[in-house]
C-alpha cells in the first residue's frame, strides 16, 4: 500500500491528504461507506466550514479581475454543490416519504428550495420568499442571517460584493435540475436588525413562465 501512495503523493508524508484509509474507520465508517439516508450525523462544524469557505473566497479572489468575475466564479462553485444537493434531497425524499414527488410547478419548487434545500445545506429554512412587484419573472428568497456570511466583513473597495453568490449558484443548479432555467444572483440588502440580510434574486427564463401559463 505504501509504495503506491508514495508514488501518488507529492511529499513523503501522506497524512496531510484525505485519502481513504482503513485505519481511521475504527469508530466511524468512512464517508464512502456511510448510509446516504442518515442525515443526522452528516453535519459539519460551522467554524470548519467558515474557514474552508474563507479560503475558497481568498483562492478565487486571487484569480479574478473584478467583483463581477468573483461573484460569477462563486456562483459556478455553488452550482456544482447545488446539482448534488438536488440529487441527494430527491434520493432521500424517495426513501423517507410514502409518496415522493418531483416538483413540476414553479411555486412549490421555490417553496422546496426555501425549506428543504436550505435545511439540507444550512440547517434552517430561509426567512422569506417574495415575488417582484415590477417584473413578473423575478422571485426573491431572503435569508436574514446567511450562515456563510456570518463572519465576513466586505471591505469598502469591494462594495456590492455578496459572497452569497455561492448560495445563488446552489439555487440556480436546483432550479435548472428541476427544469426551471433561471439566472440567479445574490444581493446584500441589510436592515438595522439584520446587518447581513441577503436577497437571492431569481430571474426565470421566458420558457418557464410560458409553460406555467399553459399548466394553469
Amino acid at each position: 500500500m505504501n509504495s503506491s501512495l508514495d508514488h501518488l503523493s507529492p511529499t513523503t508524508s501522506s497524512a496531510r491528504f484525505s485519502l481513504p484509509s482503513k485505519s481511521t474507520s475504527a469508530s466511524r465508517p468512512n464517508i464512502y461507506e456511510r448510509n446516504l439516508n442518515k442525515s443526522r450525523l452528516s453535519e459539519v462544524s460551522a467554524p470548519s466550514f467558515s474557514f474552508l469557505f474563507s479560503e475558497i473566497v481568498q483562492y478565487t479572489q486571487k484569480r479574478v479581475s473584478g467583483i463581477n468575475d468573483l461573484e460569477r466564479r462563486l456562483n459556478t462553485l455553488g452550482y456544482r454543490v447545488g446539482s448534488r444537493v438536488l440529487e441527494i434531497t430527491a434520493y432521500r425524499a424517495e426513501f423517507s416519504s410514502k409518496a415522493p414527488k418531483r416538483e413540476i410547478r414553479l411555486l412549490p419548487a421555490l417553496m422546496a428550495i426555501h425549506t428543504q434545500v436550505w435545511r439540507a445545506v444550512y440547517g434552517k429554512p430561509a426567512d422569506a420568499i417574495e415575488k417582484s412587484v415590477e417584473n413578473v419573472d423575478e422571485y426573491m428568497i431572503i435569508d436574514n442571517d446567511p450562515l456563510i456570511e456570518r463572519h465576513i466583513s466586505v471591505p469598502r473597495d469591494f462594495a456590492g460584493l455578496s459572497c452569497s453568490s455561492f448560495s445563488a449558484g446552489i439555487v440556480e443548479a436546483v432550479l435548472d435540475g428541476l427544469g426551471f432555467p433561471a439566472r440567479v444572483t445574490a444581493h446584500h440588502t441589510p436592515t438595522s436588525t439584520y446587518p447581513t440580510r441577503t436577497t437571492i434574486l431569481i430571474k426565470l427564463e421566458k420558457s418557464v413562465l410560458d409553460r406555467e401559463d399553459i399548466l394553469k
Partner: protein
Amino acid sequence: MTTNSATPVLKLSSTSFMAIFGLWVINKAGGLVYQRNFADGLAQLTANEYLVLAGTLHGIHAITSRLSPIPGQSSGAQVIEGETFKINVLLTLTGTKFVLLTSPAEPASTIDTLLQKIYSTYAEKVMQNPFHTPEMPIRSEAFDVSLGGLIG
C-alpha cells in the same frame, strides 16, 4: 517616537474605580494590528506612540518569558500592574497577544473570561473573514461590532 516627554502615559484615577480602558492586539512579530479605546481615563496617544508601546510590551514579554527559573516553562508576563492601571496579556498558541488595559480593581476572573471571549470573537470575525490578511492590521466591521457587544 515623535515625542520624548517623560510624562506618565496613564492618568490617575481612583483605585476602586472599575473600567476596561482599551484593547490591543499584537501580532507575533510585535506589530500592533488592532487598537481601540473603550473608556476615558487613559492619555490620548498618537498612532505612532501606540505602535512603539506595543513593540516595547512585546519585547518585555519576550524577556519575562525567559526569566523563569524552570527553562521553557514560562509563557511570559500575564499581568503588569501599576497604581492606576493593569496590563493583562493573553498569549495565544500562535503568538498573537491580546492586551487588555483595565483599572486595578477589575477582578482577574472577569478579565480572563473577557480575554477568552475576545479571542474567540477574533477567531470568528477576523480569522474566518476572507478579506483579512494574517499579521496585518484588522479592519473588520463585524469584529468592531462584536467587541462593542462584549465590552460596551
